[in-house]
């Protein structure tokens, strides 16, 4: 074991948006000695290489075992070492029956379908940048609807930090549009992202339609994407590739704050996979143990330790710590309440051209149903208008194959070529639109992650074992979302013959890569793992700063809430450091 003599004021485990923001914020004031540990690689200057890899990979899903549509693919394909050690659940096709488990060990009954990136900067490399805030009722779901639990903080507690997070990430949005949805004390730092041509056409054709008594309004989706040059990064050029990679970094990713932290003299060790936190006799974290990719074991010490390794990894580290006995678990909630947003979509050919694949992958959303009147019965719903044709449901290459005769086995199938082929592709793809839904999932103690007792990764560290089920509350929310989308398609007269919907009778759902829960915050140690400042109830020098602290999921993309919580936690850490 290689121990270092270095003791840091703060050791931050993980360099995603939460870890990067905390390291940056704490290092802004001189004096604090800070270390970031990252399980993945430091590839801060490799954007062009990632883009090249992306453009030279198959754009369509090839047959097994070469599933190449994972958003993580450009990053894990960079070299063999990275493929071996990156340990993001990369090429596994969760949706296919009989798929071979790679990293996640899934016990069911349902499949957990979301993944994350192990890389300096974390999963924000491959996010879409969507940054709507949680609404006030999302923090008091039990009080308001007798569902789930309440957070120990209110919307008002977090609101100033939402503003700070929007400034830090650079969120483009319209203050007046959003002030009525989620009260705002400050404007966004940038005007909203220009809404796509197709969205504008849809808005015009929809007119003043209502569903369930609620106006259907297409708002400009707040996004951590530049609508003008901001923070040294350019305005969006509409590359339509936010996932998996923005080629010009107009979209925020956490490398922005990793670089700022490094400029403030924060130390960073890459390829450092934390395996355990050791306790001192007082129950505080004494030592952080990690393995480098060569298998060597190392230790460092921190006066304060911040766990920001992602909802799955943070919960796993918690349970592997203290000599394998795990850290404190008074509430019994450690590793439990794993949540995601249940995803799906409706797609149709619009009776008007929308010309997708120009501009960001989505620019508009519908917020009127996220806190609907029946939320005591079924889940809140958010809808996003796609600007990428039929998205993952049908790639333009599928249209091309269909138009040229498919697999050529059907002799009656038309084999278009030349001008006729061009006309067919333009006519079809330019009219493709999809509306995606994102459905909240309730905290359920039976949905959990824990270290596998039998399966280990290449470094000999237990893989995560997952037990997971999607409940009827979420599926009923998905059914409601589909009814809204069908109403929209009917209103604009999109021919029903062209509709495609996720099949809820077959319990179809997708993951959203919004992994939440597992170390939830609560008002006391009987109900949760960390307090309202995201500090462990029992280990007073341990903070958690990723989406594992979420008490409920809301139906909203979690990153801006993770960022706001991280900035709030940084303030609490500052105070604790000042108090000695």
């Amino acid at each position, binding site marked *: 074991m290689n121990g270092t003599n270095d003791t840091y004021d703060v050791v931050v485990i993980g360099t995603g948006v939460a870890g990067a923001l905390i390291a940056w914020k704490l290092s802004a004031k001189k004096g604090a000695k800070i270390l970031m540990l990252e399980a993945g690689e430091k590839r801060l200057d490799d954007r062009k290489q990632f883009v090249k890899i992306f453009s030279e990979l198959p754009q369509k899903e090839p047959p097994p075992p*070469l599933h190449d549509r994972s958003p993580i693919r450009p990053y894990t394909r960079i070299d063999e070492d990275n493929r071996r050690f990156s340990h993001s659940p990369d090429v596994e096709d969760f949706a296919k029956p009989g798929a071979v488990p790679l990293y996640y060990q899934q016990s069911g009954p349902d499949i957990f379908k979301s993944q994350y990136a192990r890389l300096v900067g974390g999963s924000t490399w491959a996010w879409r940048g969507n940054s709507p805030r949680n609404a006030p009722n999302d923090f008091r779901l039990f009080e308001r609807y007798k569902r789930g639990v309440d957070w120990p903080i209110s919307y008002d507690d977090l609101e100033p930090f939402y503003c700070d997070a929007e400034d830090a990430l650079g969120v483009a949005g319209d203050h007046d549009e959003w002030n009525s949805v989620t009260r705002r004390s400050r404007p966004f730092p940038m005007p909203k992202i220009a809404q796509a041509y197709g969205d504008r056409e849809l808005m015009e054709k929809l007119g003043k339609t209502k569903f369930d008594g609620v106006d259907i309004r297409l708002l400009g989706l707040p996004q951590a994407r530049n609508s003008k040059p901001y923070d040294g990064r350019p305005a969006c050029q509409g*590359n339509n590739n936010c996932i998996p990679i923005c080629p010009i970094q107009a979209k925020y990713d956490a490398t922005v704050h990793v670089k700022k932290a490094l400029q403030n003299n924060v130390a960073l060790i890459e390829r450092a996979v934390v395996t355990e936190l050791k306790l001192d006799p007082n129950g505080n974290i004494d030592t952080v143990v990690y393995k480098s990719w060569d298998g060597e074991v190392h230790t460092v010490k921190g006066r304060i330790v911040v766990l920001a390794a992602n909802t799955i990894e943070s919960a796993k580290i918690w349970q592997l710590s203290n000599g394998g006995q795990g850290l404190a678990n008074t509430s019994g909630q450690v590793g439990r309440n794993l949540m995601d947003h249940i995803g799906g979509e409706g797609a149709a050919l619009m009776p008007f051209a929308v010309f997708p694949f120009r501009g960001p992958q989505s620019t508009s959303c519908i917020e009127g149903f996220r806190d609907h009147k029946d939320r005591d019965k079924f889940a809140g719903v958010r809808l996003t208008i796609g600007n990428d044709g039929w998205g993952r449901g049908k790639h333009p290459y599928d249209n091309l194959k269909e138009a040229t005769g498919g697999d050529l086995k059907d002799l009656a199938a038309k084999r278009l070529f030349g001008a006729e082929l061009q006309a067919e592709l333009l006519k079809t793809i330019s009219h493709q639109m999809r509306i995606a839904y994102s459905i909240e999932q309730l905290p359920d103690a039976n949905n959990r992650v824990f270290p596998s007792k039998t399966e280990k990764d290449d470094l000999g560290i237990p893989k995560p074992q997952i037990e997971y089920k999607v409940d009827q509350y979420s599926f009923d929310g998905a059914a409601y979302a589909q009814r809204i989308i069908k109403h929209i398609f009917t209103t604009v007269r999109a021919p029903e013959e062209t509709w495609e919907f996720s099949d809820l009778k077959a319990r179809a759902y997708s993951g959203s890569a919004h992994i939440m829960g597992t170390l939830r915050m609560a008002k006391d140690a009987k109900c949760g793992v960390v307090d309202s400042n995201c500090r462990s109830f029992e280990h007073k020098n341990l903070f958690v700063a990723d989406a594992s602290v979420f008490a409920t999921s809301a139906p909203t993309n979690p990153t801006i809430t993770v960022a706001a919580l991280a900035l709030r936690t940084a303030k609490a850490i500052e105070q604790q450091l000042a108090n000695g």
Partner: protein
Amino acid sequence: MVMEEDNMAESKIDIDRFLALSKVLTGAANLDTALAEAYLARLSDAFPAPPAPPVPPAPPAPTMADVLTAFAAIEKDEHLVFEVKRRIVEDKVLGSLAQKIIFIWYTSEFVGADGKPKTGTQEQFYSGLLWKVIRAHAPTNSKLKYGDWINPPAAH
């Protein structure tokens, strides 16, 4: 030396022929000659002449040479598009390669004889006709300015 020159001349004829056929199949009037050379090489490598008669004899696998030979027989026809449809696109054997020629020009990738996708270079991906035809651009290859996407695209 003479043989080498002969080979080069033959290869030039093949590229020209491939380019002419490609124009009919894709509907694009202007196709890049350097890409044509690269695409013909990639497809010819993937669909070469069979080395020896397979045992038991399988149905003849089409080769790129077969396609170009078939095209040579019709390239001067007054109704070229119709002949390409009848003799190549709808031909039981050659039809699959016609589809692959379309795919390589439209996307830079095609499925090889082994069933696996064969991708091209970044430059080839960015040259995909599909994106031009739908009046967009290959992902990560936008030439737009901020906000251009609020208006419908001009036809290329």
